[in-house]
């Protein structure tokens, strides 16, 4: 091997739990021992394919190793790095053909993806700002601060069609314009990294693998709106993301990308970190603001909207991690480029966390409007153990289930809403014939019931009532009129709750009721669980 190569060991939370920390240390030692002076050992953040961890990639060829254990290190170092013979047994094996695939780019899981937000994830060292800069990072900030007026930035974002990736899909350019046009001596921008949806992990991956993208996006948002202070509100369940964010902020400050007079533009900007303390509702923007102010994280009625009166009573603009991470890419490549990806009303890409009963669990980024079957079968590899797909749950506790009979559903904001689900944070949990849909609804209700902050009555009592009924049904004690009662409570909670948590928490119930009513009826009338999951109703096998 004549040319320089770099061997990257993934050090994301997923791979670390597969002991990739040891692999990294051992590789460094082994490469030093063999005196391989043309090989650099480095690490990256999450590749999104955590299931195959520890993941090790050799660049520039792009050889992709899976399930690497510390015992495999001598062979990788000796055979591949020293003698140029890659270790085939550690390649990814296509579950359909059983064939070994050596290159990153040839793996189906990656081949059909389009990575805009996750562009750098898995390719740069997240703790080195130079890697980010070498990949084109902070070029957009430079352009914005030195060549563009704030209104031009807003116009560019508007033109791109970018919509919020935090759940509701509100057009980001318009949100920024409200922020800009509110007059105040002081304004704030906040990056929402609370990622409360259980089953979603893309914000964690972005922050662990490419923290500067979110930072750059936040600085640009601050400039566009006229805010000199930004906050990251990040959940404490993500210790590694918190650590990498701190490192990245410090490095950006050292380079003069934060602080006074950034890049000589006269614009000042500071970033502050706030760690959450375990409350799902704090992802809601007014609750998030209360939490940053060290209060109980309870939502309040809007208006006034945070854009008028938010953090410390000042106008505040809140965006999700992925929304902000998209911003530098849009500025850099142009609004037209971004608007050229995706479907008519949903531009760009969406990042989905594929999990549950699926062969290839992981993070998947596809153009908006990609069909469910492409995501589940082509990228996800289908359902394990020869089972059949039953439904896909999207949007977490605020979303709903899409039954398998709609395989061509384009995944975008409009279509999912039409089917009674939502895009939400992008969680996508796949369910097969052994998953009981009543139990799924019960599970989500148990989550929202526990996380309801208790401030408004419909949500506090309604979730409790619905949970009781659903629990009763899964135990085989359902009553004849339970379905009608569920509908009635669900409607009341949806219409009368104060915040998004209550307004959306009936969705899992309503959507399973509309697509899988027969399962509810089997539980209630025949005392049977068709999926054979609910324990008290289980058939002997």
């Amino acid at each position, binding site marked *: 091997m004549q040319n320089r190569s770099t061997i990257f060991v993934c050090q994301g*939370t*997923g791979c*670390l*739990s*597969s002991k990739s920390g040891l692999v990294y240390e051992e590789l460094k030692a082994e490469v030093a021992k063999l005196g391989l002076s043309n090989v650099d050992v480095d690490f990256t953040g999450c590749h999104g*394919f*955590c*299931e195959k*961890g520890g993941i090790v990639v050799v660049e520039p060829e792009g050889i992709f190793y899976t399930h690497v254990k510390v015992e495999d290190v001598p062979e990788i170092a000796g055979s591949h790095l020293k003698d140029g013979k890659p270790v085939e047994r550690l390649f990814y094996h296509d579950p359909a053909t059983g064939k070994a695939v050596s290159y990153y780019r040839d793996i189906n899981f990656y081949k059909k993806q389009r990575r805009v937000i996750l562009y750098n994830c898995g390719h740069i060292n997240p703790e080195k700002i130079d890697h980010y800069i070498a990949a084109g990072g902070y070029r957009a900030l430079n352009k914005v601060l030195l060549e563009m007026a704030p209104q031009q930035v807003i116009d560019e974002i508007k033109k791109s069609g970018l919509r919020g990736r935090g759940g509701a899909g509100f057009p980001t350019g318009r949100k920024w314009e409200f922020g800009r046009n509110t007059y105040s001596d002081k304004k704030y921008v906040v990056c929402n990294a609370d*990622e*409360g*949806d*259980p*089953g*979603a*992990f893309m914000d*964690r*991956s972005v922050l662990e693998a490419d923290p500067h993208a979110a930072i750059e996006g936040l600085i640009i948002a601050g400039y566009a709106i006229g805010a000199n202070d930004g906050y990251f509100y990040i959940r*404490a*369940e*993500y*210790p590694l993301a918190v650590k990498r964010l701190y490192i990245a902020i410090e490095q950006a400050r050292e380079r003069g990308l934060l602080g006074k007079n950034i890049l000589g533009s006269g614009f000042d900007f500071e970033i502050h970190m*706030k*760690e*959450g*303390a*375990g*409350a*799902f509702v704090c992802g809601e923007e007014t609750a998030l603001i209360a*939490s940053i*102010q*060290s*209060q*109980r*994280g*309870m939502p309040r009625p809007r208006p006034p909207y945070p854009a008028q009166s938010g953090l*410390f009573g000042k106008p505040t603009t809140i965006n999700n991690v992925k929304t902000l991470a998209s911003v530098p890419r849009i500025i850099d490549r142009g609004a037209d480029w971004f608007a050229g990806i995706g479907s008519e009303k949903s531009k760009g890409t969406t990042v989905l*966390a*594929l*999990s*549950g*009963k699926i062969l290839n*669990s*992981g*993070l998947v980024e596809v153009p908006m409007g990609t069909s469910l079957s492409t995501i589940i079968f082509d990228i996800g590899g289908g359902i394990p153990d020869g089972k059949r797909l039953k439904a896909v*749950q999207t949007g*977490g506790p605020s979303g709903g289930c899409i039954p398998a009979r709609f395989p061509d559903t384009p995944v975008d904001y409009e279509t999912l809403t039409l089917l009674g689900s939502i895009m939400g944070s992008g*969680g996508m*949990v796949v*369910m097969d014939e052994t*998953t009981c849909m009543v139990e799924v609804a019960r*599970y*989500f209700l148990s*989550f929202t019931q526990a*996380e309801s*902050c208790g401030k408004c009555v419909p949500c506090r009592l309604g979730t409790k009532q619905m949970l009781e009924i659903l629990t009763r049904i899964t135990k085989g004690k359902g009553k004849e009129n339970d379905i009608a009662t569920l509908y009635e409570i669900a409607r009341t909670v949806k219409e009368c709750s104060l915040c998004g948590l209550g307004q959306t928490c009936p969705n899992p119930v309503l959507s399973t009721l509309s697509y899988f009513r027969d399962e509810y009826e089997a539980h209630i009338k025949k005392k049977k669980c068709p999926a054979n999951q609910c324990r008290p109703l289980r058939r002997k096998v």
Partner: protein
Amino acid sequence: MDKPAASKVINMERIREIVMECGGHKWALIPVIQKIQNEFGYIPPEAIHVIAIGLKIFPSQVQGVISFYAQFYTKPRGRQVITVCRGTACHVRGGESLLEMLENGLGIKEGETTADMEYSLETVACIGVCALAPNVVIGKEVYGKMDTQKIEQLLKKGEA
């Protein structure tokens, strides 16, 4: 040891210091609580009054914030904290039965600590490693793709 034993006398002086380090303003309440918990492993109830005075707020406000957030504890926890993920992905792949096994194996319920202060059993709503579901966290280490056999082994080994 990063978590002190339960019976240790609480150093109130240190708590006062922490309150002051964080600026002594009511907006610093959560960072103060987080810092105390990091150092002491929990929020000693006697600290509440000190925090309230330091930040010029009512003790009930301090108490209110502590009780609101799932991650603040007012009781000492075991030397080893075992956390079972209850997120959607982990639930669908059988997280619930892992929790049951651990409850039976340790003889405690979720949210409790063994009498010898060795283990606490907790749950979390998702740790973002859903692709390796179901997950159990012991201390700071994530154990992915858990199943009943692996739990049994852990229990036999005297946990982690």
